[in-house]
C-alpha cells in the first residue's frame, strides 16, 4: 500500500514535468534567449556599420556608460516614473472605488461591472487613436467640453506641450487601467468573510471604520499584488506612447521602452537599444521581486 503510494507520487512528479516543461521550453526559447541576446549585444558595439558583418568588438561597459551619461536617459527614466506614479495614483483608487461600489450588489451591479471591463479589452492602438482624437487641440471633444463648461477660456494644445502631453497619455492609460484594477480588487472583495463585517456592525463600527479596520487589512495582500502588477504593466508601456505621441514633443513623453526602441530602430544603434532595454528590464525585475515574493508567500500558506 505504502509503496504504491510512493510510486504514485514518483509517477505524478514525472507527469508534472511533462505538464510544465513544454510551456517552459517555449518561453525559454521565445523570451529568455532574446534577453540573453540583448545582454550579449549590449557589451558589443553593434551599430549600422557592423550589424551585418561578423566583426563585433567586445567593449565592456562602454555602451552602458554612453547611455548613462546622456541626459535623455534620465529624462526617459523620470518620465517613466512620473507616468507610472500618476497612473497608479489614479487608476488604483478609482478602480478600488468602483469595485467597492459594485460589491453593493444592487440590481444592475454585475451587468455594469461587466461592460466596464470592456475598456480593458480595447486594443492599445485603438485606445491611443481615440484619445489622440479626443485630445486634439483644434477639434478635440475634450477642449470643446472644457471650454463649454467655462473651465478653461481658450483651447489647450494637449499633445503639443510637454506637460499636457504627459497628462494626456496618463489619462488614456488610466482609462484602460481602471477596469483592470476594479476587476482584480472585486475578486478579492468577493472572497472576504462576511461574518467579520457582521460582528463589526454589531460592535457599532461605522462604515468608515469597517473600511479602514477590516477591509483594508484583509485586502492588503491583494492590494499589494494589484499594485505591483499595475506597476509592471505601466512601467513597460510602449504601444500607447509610441502611437499617441511618439515620445514627443521633443523628449517630453519619452519613456524607457520608446527610448530603447528609438535607439535600435530609428538611430540603428542596436547596442544602445539593447542596453537601454536591459536597464528597463533590471528595474522591472527589482519591482518584480516584490511580486515574486508575494506569489511565493502565498505558495507557503
Amino acid at each position: 500500500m505504502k509503496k504504491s503510494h510512493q510510486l504514485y507520487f514518483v509517477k505524478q512528479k514525472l507527469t508534472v514535468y511533462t505538464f510544465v516543461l513544454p510551456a517552459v521550453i517555449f518561453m525559454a526559447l521565445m523570451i529568455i534567449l532574446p534577453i540573453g541576446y540583448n545582454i550579449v549585444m549590449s557589451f558589443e558595439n553593434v551599430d549600422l556599420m557592423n550589424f551585418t558583418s561578423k566583426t563585433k568588438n567586445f567593449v565592456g561597459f562602454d555602451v552602458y556608460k554612453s547611455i548613462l551619461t546622456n541626459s535623455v536617459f534620465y529624462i526617459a527614466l523620470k518620465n517613466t516614473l512620473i507616468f507610472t506614479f500618476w497612473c497608479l495614483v489614479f487608476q488604483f483608487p478609482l478602480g478600488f472605488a468602483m469595485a467597492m461600489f459594485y460589491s453593493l450588489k444592487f440590481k444592475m451591479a454585475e451587468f455594469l461591472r461587466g461592460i466596464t471591463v470592456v475598456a480593458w479589452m480595447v486594443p492599445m492602438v485603438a485606445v491611443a487613436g481615440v484619445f489622440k482624437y479626443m485630445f486634439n487641440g483644434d477639434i478635440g471633444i475634450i477642449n470643446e467640453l472644457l471650454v463649454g463648461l467655462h473651465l478653461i477660456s481658450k483651447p489647450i494644445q494637449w499633445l503639443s506641450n510637454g506637460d499636457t502631453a504627459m497628462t494626456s497619455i496618463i489619462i488614456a492609460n488610466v482609462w484602460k487601467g481602471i477596469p483592470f484594477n476594479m476587476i482584480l480588487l472585486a475578486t478579492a472583495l468577493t472572497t472576504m468573510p462576511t461574518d467579520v463585517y457582521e460582528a463589526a456592525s454589531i460592535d457599532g463600527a461605522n462604515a468608515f471604520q469597517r473600511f479602514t479596520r477590516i477591509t483594508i487589512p484583509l485586502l492588503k495582500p491583494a492590494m499589494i499584488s494589484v499594485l505591483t502588477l499595475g506597476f509592471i504593466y505601466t512601467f513597460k508601456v510602449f504601444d500607447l506612447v509610441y502611437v499617441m505621441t511618439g515620445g514627443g514633443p521633443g523628449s517630453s513623453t519619452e519613456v524607457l521602452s520608446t527610448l530603447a526602441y528609438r535607439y535600435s530602430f530609428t538611430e540603428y544603434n542596436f547596442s544602445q537599444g539593447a542596453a537601454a532595454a536591459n536597464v528597463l528590464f533590471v528595474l522591472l525585475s527589482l519591482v518584480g521581486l516584490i511580486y515574486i515574493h508575494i506569489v511565493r508567500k502565498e505558495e507557503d500558506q
Partner: protein
Amino acid sequence: MKKRILSAAVAVILTAAMFTGCASSGGSSTTTSGDSSKPTTLQMWYHISPDQAKVLLTFLDEYQSANPNIKIETQSVPFQEMKKQLSIGTAAGQLPDLALCDTVDNVSFAAMGVADDITTEVNAWGDIDNFYPGPKSSGMYNDKYYGLPFYSNCLSIMYNKDIFDKMKVPYPTSDWTWSDFIDKVHKTNSPDAFGLTMCLFKSEEGTFDELPFFWQAGADWNTLNTPQAVDGLKTINDLYTGHYMSKELISMTQADMCSSLFSTGKSAMMVAGSWLSKNIKNANPNLNYAAVPLPMVDGKNTASPIGGGNLMMLTKDKKAQTWDLMKWLNSKDNQQKYCEQAGYIPPRKDAADAGEIWKTDPILSVYQKSMANARARGPHPQWPQISSAIQFAVQDTLSGAKTPEQALKSASDEIAAIKK
C-alpha cells in the same frame, strides 16, 4: 446544455482557424524561391503613400505583362517603419530584391552593406549622366553607386492667393527675402487662418522642412553650436510660439498638415514639397494657390533640400532581373510618366526637359527650377542619428522644454559623438 453547445462551437471555430492558418502560411513561404521553369518572383518594398503607390502599381503591372516570366510581389511598408524593417531584415538575411527608400537613407544602407553595389551595371547602362548631380550623388557612397533616384522633389512655399487678397498683402515673388517672408507671415495671420504651416513632426519629414531655416541663417547639421544655428532655430520658434502656426504641427506629417490646414484654407502659406500639390487637388480642387521659391539670402534663393525616393538593389541571386526592372522604371519615358502622375520632379534632366508639365504647370515649374539649386541633406552614413538630434532640438525648443541654445548644445554634442 448551453455550455456544451458553446464549447462545441468554440472547438469547431478553433480547429477551422488552425487548419486555414496552417494552409495559408505554408502556401506563402513556398512561392518565393526561384525556379527556371516557373516565373521569377521579385520582392519589392515601397514606402510611398496610397495616392502615389497606386501609380507605381500600374507601372509594375505593365512591366509584368510585358515580361510574363517575371512576377513582382510588392509590400507596402509605412514610411517610418522602412528603416527598421530593412535593418532587422538585414540581420536576419530576409530582404526584398528591390526597395524604394527615402533618398536620404540610401547612403546609410550603402554604408551598412545592405544595398548592393551597382556600379558595373550603372556604368554599362550609360544613362546616369542624364541625372541631375544632386539626386545622382544621393545614391553614391565612396564613389560607387548603390541606388538610383526614381523621383525627386524639393521645397518651395505654397501660398493661398485668396487669403493674401483678403488681407491685402501683395503676393510673394521669387526675389523675396527672409524678412519679406516673416513680414508676410505676420500680415496674413488672422483668427481665421494661420500665417504659416510647416512640418515640425519628429521624423525625417520634420528635418526636411526645418533644414532651410538653418541654411538661410548660415548653419548646417555640423555647425549647430554656432550663433547662426541659434538664429535659424529662433526663426522657427518665434513663428511657432507667436501663434503664427498651429500648435498641432508638432504631431502632424506633411500630408496631415496639408489636408487639415492648407487645403481647407486655414493657412496662408505652407512650406511644401511638390507632391502635396496632388493632395491639394484631390482634397480641394477649388483652392486658389500658387508656389514661390524659398526666400533669398544675399541675392540667391535659399537652397532647397533634395527629397525623393531611390531604388536600391538588395537581392542576393536575382541581380539581372532586378537590374532590368530598375532600368525599366528609370528609363526616361517611365520616369517622366511616373513623376507626372505622382506629382514629383524627375531626377533625370532629359525626362524633366521632355515633360511639358514641368514647364507649363504653375506649381511644378517652380519646383523644377528650384531643383537646379537644391542641396542634399548630409550626406552622411549616420544621417538618421543626426536627423534625430535636429528633430529633438527643434521639438524641445518649441515645447518649451529647453532654450534654443540649450537644445542646440545637446544636439551638437550628440552629433559630435557620432562624427568620431
